[in-house]
């Protein structure tokens, strides 16, 4: 403060003060430059991250002929019969020449094929999310209360199973589905999904953070196990359940491996698998379908971003 006073008074600044001011200015400018640079880098990455999504959405508003003239070459692996004009160059366009909803109209009204696949996705994913949460809520309460050595060992097995990639779990899944005769039915995807240890692990980790004093207080007041679970643990875990629901939803909405192996009937495949099989004649529709497929996840993201971030944060550090 001393240097400021002397400046304000105008009584000639001491040499040391002047040096100090200069230094401070220099430092300020340097931090400003650094901050600007950091912002620019962040903006650059943000553009890179968002571009594919935005492109998909904007391209979905192109008319079919515009798309085939722009990208026809990319997707014309098989001969399309030369009906449409295919340009030599691939034109990537951010904004369509004419905004048209013709693709959406076709997808939503004229060709119900895509809507069926979308419905397939929904019907595969929603029961998994719901029932996995239910099973996990019960199980994690079991893991939280009366901890014992055996339970710890079982929990450890759960962690290992959770971390196993599909390469490992799909063979056992296939075997069981064979025994139970549920291959080529939706049960083959539902059941392993419902009993997947992921939600149990995450929820247990969260539930174990509930102070034991709270539970003990309830017990002394005469609450039974079911009441403690229903009235105390569940309300406290609401946020965590939301996070987990979002994580499970993204994971299964994205699924490709399981239906490929467990459902040989293509009519039951979810949209995620079907999208890759759209042939050259229908590329016009592909962008619209892709956009429609993104919408649920983006909506979930819009309303649940904080839950998602929280959910990821719980995952940090493997142990309970």
């Amino acid at each position, binding site marked *: 403060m001393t240097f400021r006073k002397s400046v304000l008074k105008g009584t000639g600044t001491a040499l040391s003060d002047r040096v100090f001011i200069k230094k401070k200015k220099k430092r300020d400018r340097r931090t400003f430059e650094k901050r600007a640079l950091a912002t620019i880098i962040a*903006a650059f990455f943000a553009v890179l991250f968002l571009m594919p999504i935005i492109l998909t959405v904007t391209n979905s508003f192109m008319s079919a002929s515009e798309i085939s003239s722009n990208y026809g070459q990319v997707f014309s692996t098989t001969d399309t019969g030369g009906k449409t004009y295919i340009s030599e160059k691939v034109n990537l366009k951010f904004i369509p020449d004419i905004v048209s909803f013709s693709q959406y109209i076709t997808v939503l009204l004229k060709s119900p094929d895509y809507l069926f696949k979308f419905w397939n996705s929904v019907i595969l994913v929603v029961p998994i999310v719901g029932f996995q949460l239910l099973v996990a809520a019960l199980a994690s309460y079991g893991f939280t209360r009366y901890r014992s050595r055996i339970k710890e060992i079982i929990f450890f*097995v759960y962690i290992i199973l959770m971390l196993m990639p599909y390469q490992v779990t799909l*063979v056992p899944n296939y075997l069981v589905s064979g025994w139970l005769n549920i291959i080529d039915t939706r049960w083959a995807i539902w059941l392993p999904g419902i009993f997947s240890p992921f939600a149990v692990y995450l929820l247990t980790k969260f539930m174990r953070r509930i102070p034991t004093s709270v539970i003990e207080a309830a017990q002394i007041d005469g609450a039974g196990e079911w009441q403690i679970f229903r009235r105390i643990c569940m309300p406290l875990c609401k946020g965590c359940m939301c996070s987990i629901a979002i994580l499970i939803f993204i994971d299964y909405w994205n699924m490709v491996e399981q239906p490929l192996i467990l459902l040989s009937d293509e009519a039951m495949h979810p949209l995620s698998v079907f999208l890759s099989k759209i042939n050259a004649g229908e590329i016009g529709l592909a962008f619209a379908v892709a956009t429609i497929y993104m919408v649920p996840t983006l909506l979930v993201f819009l309303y649940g971003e904080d839950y998602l971030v929280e959910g990821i944060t719980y995952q940090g550090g*493997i142990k309970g």
Partner: protein
Amino acid sequence: MKKELKTPKKEKIKSANSLRKKGERGKRISCVFLSPSILGVLVFFVVPFLVVIYYSVVDNPINHSFVFLDNFRNVFNNGAFRQAAFNTMKFSLIAVPLAVVLALGLALLLDSKIPFRSQFRTFFLTPMMVPIASIVLIWQVLFHYNGMVNDVIGLFGAGKIDWLKSDYAQIVIIVLFLWKNLGYNMILFMAALSSIPKDILEVAVLESAKPRQIFFYIKLRYLSSTLLFVTIMSLINSFKVFREIYLLTGSYPYNTLYMMQHFMNNTFGSLDYQKLSAAAIMMSIVMVILIGILFLTENYFGKDVEG
């Protein structure tokens, strides 16, 4: 007086007894809570996995004659398996360090005082939410022989590359992998960064430590366990990259893109249980080793920082 003293004592003993009884009952009830999940996991994961182990050491499911390691040897000598294992390993070795370092960079970037931090966080996280199937189309357009990426490279005087059908194919997948996974890793790092005690950082600044010193001597030490967790998670996620490749190129992609899951999927076609089981077991052994490392080092580092 004596009578009055005695009665509460008796009651105490009684209530303690009933509490203990309640406790034992509670224990049994807690097992009831556990049972659906344990039953499901047993039926759908543990038991079949044991059968898979059994299948991997017999010659076929009908004969049941014990051949020990023959299946493993067969799989290991299989050209497709080797190619798949090699490609998967190569991909992981390149993609995982990139995923960790870039995510840490982004987290530090958002940790510094820049405007629109929460917006940037949202932007970086969006790819995680978007299903890959939706994005594959645009990826094909971008990396096509006559696509935009080649145009951009062309500006710098480089020749055109047919991305998905050349030795550069892995680069395309690595970019896609990073695009998808950086946000997740970044959030983990951001959580760890915000858990570093502020007073330690303030003291360091007062002691006129340079930013580089603060990063290497303080932040990195506190991040060590997260660093490891992120590495392992990225490694596991890198095994799942089949999804991207399948959606981009189908069941039989260019050589350098032939991954473990391709091998598994194509073996499912012929239903060769022995091959499948042996490959799955090998994969799981690798996984158990990785997870073991994760646990051991987390124990080690956890003590280091918290204690």
